[in-house]
């Protein structure tokens, strides 16, 4: 087992975290060990999207990312999305549109959608499907998720693009 350790400094949900981690440690495991419970692994191969986090605003599979790769970067999870008990507009839209059932894919779906709307505030339904296509859901049949993202987009437009 390789014992090499690497120093990292990460902006994790708005707070700076400085640590020394095993070189081979994977971001998903690291985040869970720090109590970021919303990050869950499913495929562990980087293909299902369940473990998605945002790295500098870009969706990344945390199961397929080493901790050292996010040194000096901003990592965002659901815990960093909204303040206190309030829900981010995307989260609220997921609730209102019943865009989840078992909920296992939901953290990854929400973050991927947040990234989309931060880049493209008014996506078409096709663009939503295309952007989200790296996230697998087994329960909903996807259509309610597309509806929720479009809903969130229009709400954010209505409230002046507040994110």
């Amino acid at each position, binding site marked *: 087992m390789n014992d090499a350790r690497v120093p990292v400094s990460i902006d994790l949900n708005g707070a700076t975290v400085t640590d020394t981690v095993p070189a081979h440690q994977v971001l998903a495991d690291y985040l869970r060990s720090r109590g970021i419970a919303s990050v869950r692994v499913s495929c562990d191969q980087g293909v299902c999207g369940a473990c998605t986090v945002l790295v500098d605003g870009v969706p990344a599979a945390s199961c397929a990312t080493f901790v050292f790769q996010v040194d000096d970067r901003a990592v965002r999870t659901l815990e960093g999305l909204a303040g206190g008990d309030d829900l981010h507009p995307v989260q609220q839209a997921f609730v209102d549109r019943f865009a989840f059932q078992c909920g296992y894919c939901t953290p990854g779906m929400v973050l991927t959608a947040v990234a989309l709307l931060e880049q493209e505030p008014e996506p078409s339904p096709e663009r939503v499907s295309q952007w989200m296509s790296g996230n697998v859901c087994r329960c*909903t*049949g996807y259509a309610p998720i597309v509806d929720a993202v479009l809903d969130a987009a229009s709400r954010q437009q209505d409230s002046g693009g507040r994110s």
Partner: protein
Amino acid sequence: MTATSSVGAPLQRADAYAKVAGSLRYAVDFELPGMAQAAVLRSPHPHARIVRIDAESARRLPGVLAVLTGADPAARSRYGWYIKDQPILADRVARYAGDMVAAVAAVDSATAMAALELIDVVYEPLPPLIDLDSALRPDAPAIFEEPPRGKAPDYGRGASGWVHPEKNVCYRFRYTTGDSAVFGACDHVFEDTFTFSAMQHYHLEPFVTVASVADGLIEVWSSNQNPFALRRELARLFDRDEERVRVHVPPVGGAFGAKNLCKAEPVAILLAMATGRPVRFCMTAAESFLTQRQHSARLRLRTGVMADGTLIARRCEVLLDAGAYADASPLVSEKAAYRAPGPYRWQHVDTVASCVLTTTTPAGPFRGFGAPQASWASESQLDMIARRLDIDPYQLRVKNLRELGEPYMPGDSALDSDLRSGLDTVADALGYHDPRRRAELRRAGRGLGLAVGFKDSGGGRKPASARVSVSGDGQVTLRCGTVELGQGAHTALRQVVAQILAVPFGDVRFAPVDTTSVPYDQGTYASSSSAVMGRAVAEATENVRGQVREVITQRGGNPSGAEDEGLRPGWRRLVSGHEFEGSGHFEVASDVNAPLGEKCLFWEPGWGGAEVEVDRETGRVRLRHLVVCGDAGRMINPQLCHGQEQGSAVMGMAQAIVERFGYSDGALATRDPLTYRVATFGDLPDEFRCIVQEQGHGPGPFGAKGYGEGGMLVVAAAVANAVHDAVGARVTDLPLTPERVLDALAKAESEPAEDSG
């Protein structure tokens, strides 16, 4: 939301906040102090004698706490539903590539996995039996040298079951009614064979169990659909009273049938016993493919009809590929056979399904439970017959569909849905009867197809109990064993309680599912939560309501709400300090005249309509429009019903076009999420509509039926029928790949005189 309007309202799910915030705790998140991590070594060979296992190096690796193999007597105990044939760890024979041969507990996952590398196993490969034909050959080796013990249940009129009737067939079920002589009176007898592919459930939360054994008490936290059936099986496996086994089931991250009975639990318990520590066995997603999958099948239908389209007789022979162990295959075979005739009038039916053992991943319950296989064949053949007789496929169905109130088969309960109504809904949504539209479609290489799906639902031999309590300070709690799989059962059942007790939905708490503190339930499957557990919950709640009324009356108050039986809003103030508890129970009575030993509680229909566009050069099928419909009786929560309909329909679409679990050159080709092409956002049809009817005839509270499997039964046949309508090519195998469509096109063009259907 007013207190008395819970049922029928699209109330926000009780678990909504936790799921979108990511704070919900699944079994995968569960931890105990001092918990060890488990990993298992699996046979790489599909069939092999295990000559020797040397685990000494593994045991000596620092951080390894225990290594067990099939040589350990406790590991040889066997589990299963009707047939107890699956050992906790394979002993002398590995029966499929993936069969567990050794188990390691270590201080962390990395160490456990490193230990696997140090276990040396000597195998003597045996001939693999990867498919139905190789397993059924007379010279094929027997996967079980001695047939394992098992028992067929007592069936009713016309039905029989046999355990291990022949080599490599672990179970056979047969149902027959009427006289086969009527085949002789038919104008035509058509025989067609269909194959049905397997999918893998692909639940995102893996199989995971944490086990702790202390003072003789076995305690597990598991992602599992059958807490009480699991408890019973574990008590038997580990030789103790059921009271000494405790099962906790947190909310489950998807199951679709896979998480039934024993999966990760026995290994976790064995390791907990060997190490004296709690042990977590969390399988990888790849290991799901080595643990459970849907039944692939071959179905041969021999159907006798009159020239005017009257259906007379049907003989079905179904071969289910059961994989290496029986698992729930015998139960699936009952349903695959019994449902194969479909909801039509027959004078004679003879249907038999055999569970063929193969050296592949065990097949088990998968949404639809034999009905997807049956409907694929039956609804495809109906269309083929219609075209051979030059009758509109819609008309052929309407002519023969059983009506509301007619028994499905002699001795079984009457249909409780108007099947024509749903068929008309999907046909109209597609413009099926508009001749101009049909002509336009055909010119554009497009076609329309319909299908009617039908299954008996609510389960068999499935008692359910519930308890409802009101504490002194007014807290309402529902205790029952229904598992929240994502389907929303914990929300819908709370709505039933809230409605009957006239309290706000948010005031009803659902107790954690724990076999020591909730009453017995057979399991969360067979679309049974709303109708079966719903009845137990309603009874328990009505019981409490009656007690409350009594106390209020005794205290000189007036308990009534809007109806005489109801409670007025604010009643809890009138009884504060007083505690109430009520029980409810529901169980279908056994009936020797009913084919399966009980009358079916409710029928779950599905209706599907598809518009496809077929590219004659590439064979590619584009699903332009999919409409799916079901009958929920009465929707307790419309959003939950719609969610189930959509999810089921997309899974059915995946079966038809996208997904296939399969072997290639003897090895599992689809062995992990990377290699298994699952349905994604991009696979949705151009237009997709789900319609949920409320015909009102359900046996559940307020007229509810169960819901959630209908979509799985209709999409494949509707799409194949639409392809046939579009280009005259008939595909009888799933999935409908471009290659198969091209082959069917070539066949149709080369045999114009003989209508192959």
